[in-house]
């Protein structure tokens, strides 16, 4: 059984409406199903616990594309436009009364957002993290949390990405490089 310390918070990173129709960005049905099952499991566990604040991060871009910056210079196409399905929460995990929402324009949930202010207000020291993409927004949110002195705990099965499995694994190994023991399993929630 996993120990949830005092001063913890749960951060759901970009658990959003359906992925792109573009097959290049498809996770494949099996990986997607496992990801969704686990992210729901984590959300429900923390809701039942009732003592740990739940924070929903959502990637949103303005419709005229003004805030994409360099984000389209690599592998990604326009995504998560405001007012679209991609720009809304995945319904089974969508925020409910009493939970926090932090929109972002970049990969890291700390970049140009009030997440750090919110976490100080909550006196959070341990961040439980899940969501997507494992190798981009989850990875960079975890490293910023680390650089801001938080303890990070990443539920490996509750992270998803359309990138290859070995790429996702390399990102988790890098998180483990900077905080030993930070990659944890959803299975530990119930055992």
């Amino acid at each position, binding site marked *: 059984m996993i120990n949830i310390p005092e001063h913890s918070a749960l951060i759901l990173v970009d658990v959003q409406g359906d992925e792109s129709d573009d097959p290049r960005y498809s996770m494949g049905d099996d990986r997607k199903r496992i990801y969704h099952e686990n992210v729901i499991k984590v959300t429900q566990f923390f809701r039942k616990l009732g003592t740990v604040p739940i924070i929903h991060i959502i990637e949103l871009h303005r419709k005229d594309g003004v805030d994409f*910056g*360099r*984000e389209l*210079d*690599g*592998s990604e196409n326009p995504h998560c436009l405001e007012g679209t399905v991609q720009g809304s929460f995945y319904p089974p995990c969508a925020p409910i009364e009493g939970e926090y929402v932090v929109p972002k324009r*970049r*990969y*890291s949930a700390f*970049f140009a957002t009030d997440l750090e202010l919110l976490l100080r207000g909550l006196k959070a020291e341990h961040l439980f993290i899940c969501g997507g993409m494992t*190798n*981009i927004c989850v990875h*960079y949110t975890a*490293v*910023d949390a*680390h*650089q*801001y*002195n*938080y*303890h990070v705990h990443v539920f490996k099965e509750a992270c998803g990405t359309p*990138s290859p499995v070995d*790429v996702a694994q*390399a*990102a988790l*190994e*890098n998180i*483990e*490089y*900077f*905080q*030993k023991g930070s990659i944890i399993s959803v299975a530990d929630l119930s055992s």
Partner: protein
Amino acid sequence: MRIPDKSALLVIDLQNDMSSTAIPVMKGSHCMQNAPRIIGYFREHGIPVIQVREMHRADMSDFGRELDGVEGVHCLEGTSAVEFNPATAPVEGEYTFGKRRYSAFLGTDLDLLLRCKGIENLFLIGGLTDVCVRFTAVDAHQYNYRFFVVTDCVTGSSWKAHEYALANMKYLQRESNITTADIIGEAVEVKDND
């Protein structure tokens, strides 16, 4: 390649502690052979060279969570480990600054400096590919800079981590992976130094 206008070279953590065991470094990297050539090229062409080095206070008050992973105590102020590597050390008139974290943007004046100089393109060399170089690239990207990482002038914690980090940077900016030969304009003869 032609170095675009409004460019600068950012030299990351080429310090004096190369033989220290506090931080793992892959064997056989050509980083230290190529770095003086890259730096020399930027100097000769009058393109700004900026050097950042990792520094931690001697009482260790600023390590944060940095010792919770693989890395041991490193780059303490007042020790020789914190000094710039003599082979690549800054010269008069070059910009230098210290950092406490992996990203050269976090808690530093780098973004201000780049804005004041009108820099839009950052060339990255140094180490570690999968840690300070990668997370500096990520922040440069998030601040809207174009970045180029010189793949044979950076060194990682392991070859595997190095390769995955380079691919990760290419995911962000598809043109970002370049080589020393792309800059110098000729193949570079280097000896292995395992």
